C-alpha cells in the first residue's frame, strides 16, 4: 500500500511539474496557431519577461506596477518582432522563420542579461513551496501551494484562451489569419494588429510561466534550458492545439518523473534530461501530428 501511495505521489508530482512545461508550451502554441511560425524564442521570452519583472521589483516598483510594466515591455518586444523580424520575412519558408526566431531568442537573452545581470535572483510570490500539512496528513501526498497555484493558473489560462479563440471576434480573426493570411487580409482583417496581439499575448503567457518557474527554481539563465523541454511537449500535444499543450505537458511531466524514479536508478539516474526528447521521437514515429494536432505535417 505504501508503495502504491509512493507511486501516486510520484505521479502527482510529475503532473504538477508538467503544468509548468505546459505554461511555456502555451505561448508557443498561440504564435503557431496564428502565424504558423515556430517561435523558438519562447523560452528566451520567459526568461526575459520574468527577469524584467524581478528587476523592476528590485528597483522599488510594487508587484502590480511591475507586472503592468513588464506586460508593456512584452508588448514592445512583440511590436519590435513584428516590425523588424516578421514583416521583412513575410512569405519566407518555415525553416527560415525558425532560424530567425533562434536569433531573436539570443537577442532577448543577451538584452535581459545586459540589463539585469547574470546572478540568480529569488522571486517570492508569497506562495509557499513546501508541502501543505493538511494534505500530507490526510492524503499522505507532498504537494505545495505553489504546485496547486501553477496547476490552477495553467487551467485558467487554457480555458480562457480556448474560449477566446472559439467565441470572440478576435479569436475568429486569429483563426482566419492562421488559415489563410492572404484571404484574411483581403476581407479586411488587420494582419499586423493580429500578429502584434498574438505576440503580446504570448509575452504575457511567458511572464506568467516565468513567474511560476522563477518562484520554484529562482530566476536564472537555466530557465532557457528548461523551456527547451516545451518542445517535446508540443510534439506530443500537437503544435496547434491549446488542450494539446496541457495534455502534452502532463504526459511529459508524469513520464519523466516515473521513469526517473523507477527506471533511472538502473542507469545511474538523471535521465530526466533526455527522456522527454526520446519520448517525443517515439511519438514522431507513430503520430507525427501529435495527439491533438490538426494539420498533418508534411511527410516525406
Amino acid at each position, binding site marked *: 500500500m505504501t508503495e502504491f501511495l509512493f507511486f501516486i505521489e510520484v505521479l502527482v508530482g510529475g503532473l504538477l511539474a508538467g503544468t509548468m512545461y505546459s505554461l511555456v508550451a502555451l505561448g508557443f502554441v498561440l504564435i503557431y496557431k496564428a502565424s504558423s511560425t515556430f517561435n523558438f524564442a519562447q523560452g528566451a521570452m520567459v526568461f526575459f519577461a520574468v527577469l524584467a519583472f524581478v528587476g523592476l521589483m528590485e528597483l522599488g516598483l510594487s508587484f502590480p506596477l511591475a507586472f503592468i510594466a513588464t506586460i508593456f515591455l512584452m508588448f514592445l518586444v512583440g511590436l519590435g518582432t513584428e516590425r523588424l*523580424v516578421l514583416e521583412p*520575412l513575410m512569405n519566407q519558408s*518555415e525553416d*527560415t522563420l*525558425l532560424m530567425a526566431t*533562434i536569433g531573436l531568442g539570443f537577442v532577448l537573452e543577451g*538584452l535581459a542579461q545586459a540589463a539585469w545581470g547574470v546572478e540568480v535572483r529569488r522571486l517570492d510570490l508569497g506562495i509557499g513551496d513546501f508541502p501543505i500539512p493538511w494534505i500530507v496528513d490526510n492524503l499522505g501526498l507532498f504537494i505545495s501551494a505553489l504546485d496547486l497555484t501553477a496547476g490552477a493558473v495553467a487551467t485558467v489560462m487554457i480555458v480562457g484562451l480556448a474560449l477566446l479563440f472559439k467565441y470572440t471576434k478576435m479569436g475568429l480573426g486569429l483563426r482566419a489569419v492562421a488559415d489563410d493570411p492572404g484571404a484574411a487580409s483581403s476581407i479586411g482583417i488587420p494582419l499586423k494588429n493580429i500578429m502584434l496581439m498574438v505576440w503580446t499575448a504570448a509575452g504575457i503567457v511567458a511572464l506568467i510561466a516565468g513567474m511560476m518557474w522563477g518562484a520554484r527554481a529562482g530566476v536564472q539563465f537555466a530557465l532557457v534550458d528548461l523551456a527547451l523541454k516545451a518542445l517535446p511537449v508540443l510534439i506530443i500535444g500537437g503544435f496547434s492545439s491549446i488542450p494539446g499543450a496541457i495534455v502534452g505537458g502532463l504526459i511529459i511531466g508524469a513520464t519523466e518523473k516515473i521513469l526517473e524514479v523507477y527506471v533511472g536508478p538502473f542507469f545511474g539516474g538523471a*535521465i530526466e534530461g533526455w527522456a522527454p526528447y526520446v519520448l*517525443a521521437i517515439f511519438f514522431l514515429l507513430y503520430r507525427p501530428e501529435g495527439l491533438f494536432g490538426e494539420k498533418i505535417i508534411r511527410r516525406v
Partner: protein
Amino acid sequence: MSAKPVFMTYTKGDVVNFVVLMALAFLVIPSIVETDYWYTSILIPWLCLALAAIGQQIVMGYTGQLSLGAAGFMAAGAFACFNFILRVPDIPFFVALGLSGLVAAGFGILFGLPSLRVRGIYLMVATLASQFFIIWMIDKFGWFKNYDTSGIITAQDIVIFGHAFTSPMEMFFVVVVVVTVLTLLAMNMARGSTGRNWMAVRDMDIAAESMGISLLRTKLQAFAISAFYCGVAGALFAFTYLKSLEPVAFDIKLSFEILFMVILGGLGTINGAFIGAAFILLFPVVLNSVGNNLFHGAIDATIISSIEQVVFGVLIIVFMIYEPLGMAKLWDNIKQRFLRSRSLRNEVPRDHKGLSKQES
C-alpha cells in the same frame, strides 16, 4: 543514370590544392607566426570548429535537414578517441581518429532515423535528444571516462610513428593535415553525385525520390558523414585545443555556436564553414579587446558577453532577411565585382558560355 557514391575520386585540382595548402601550412605559416598564442588560441580551434561546421553544413546546408546535435557527436568522437588510445595498445593516432569518427557516424545514423519521417523543427527536437543523450551517457557511465572521478581527464599525447606531437606548432600540423584532407574530400563529395543527391533532397525531396534517389540512403548517408566529420572534429578539439576531456565542453551551447557558424557563414558552402567558424571564434576576442581598450575595463565582462549574444542574434536575423546565403555569398559578390570590373577594364568580350557559368 548511375548514382555511385564516389568518395575517393580526386581530380588534378585537388592534388594541386593539397600541395599548395600543405606548403602554406608547413612553410609559410610557421615563418609568419611568432607566438604560440596564434596556434593554441586561434588557428587550432578555428580549424577544429570549421571541421565540425563542415559536418553541420553537410546535413543542414547540403541536405536541408535541420539538426542541433553537432556538439553531441563531437563529444562521442572525443571520448571514443580517448578510449581507443587508452584501451588498444599501440594504436596509430590517425587510426584511432578515424575509428572515433566512425563511432560518431553510428550515432549519426541512429539519431538521423527520425529524419526519414519528419523535418524542420520536429527533426530539431529529435536531434536535441541525441545531444542530451550522448552527454548524459558519457557522464553517467564511468567506463567512458576510465572511472576518473575528477571530471576532467587529461588527453593523451598524440604519438605518430613514435614521435609525440606536443608543442603547439606540431599539434597545428596534425590538425591542418586532417582538416585539409577532410575538407578536400567534402568538396569532392559535394561536387559529385553524392552531393547532387543531397541537394536534390534538400531542394525538393519528392522530386528527388521520383527521380530514383533513395531518400533513406541519402539522408542517413548525410547524417553519417556529418557525424563522422563532427566526431573527428571533436576528437581533434579535445586532444589539441582543450587538451582535456570533459562532457561539459560539448554542451548545447556549442551546438548552437556551430549552427550559427553555418548560418552566418553561408548554408551549402564549404568555405562558409571556415568563414563562419572564424567569425564566431574571433568576434568575442575582438569585442573583448575593443571593450577593454575603449572603456578600460569600465564595462563588465558579463555585459560584454551579453552584448556578444545580442549581436549574434541580430546578425542571424539580418542575414536571414538580407542575405540568406551568408558571408560566403558576400565574399563571392565582392570577388565577382572585382573580376567584372577588371574584365571591363581589359575589355575582354564575354561569350555566352562564360556568362552562364558565372551565373550558375
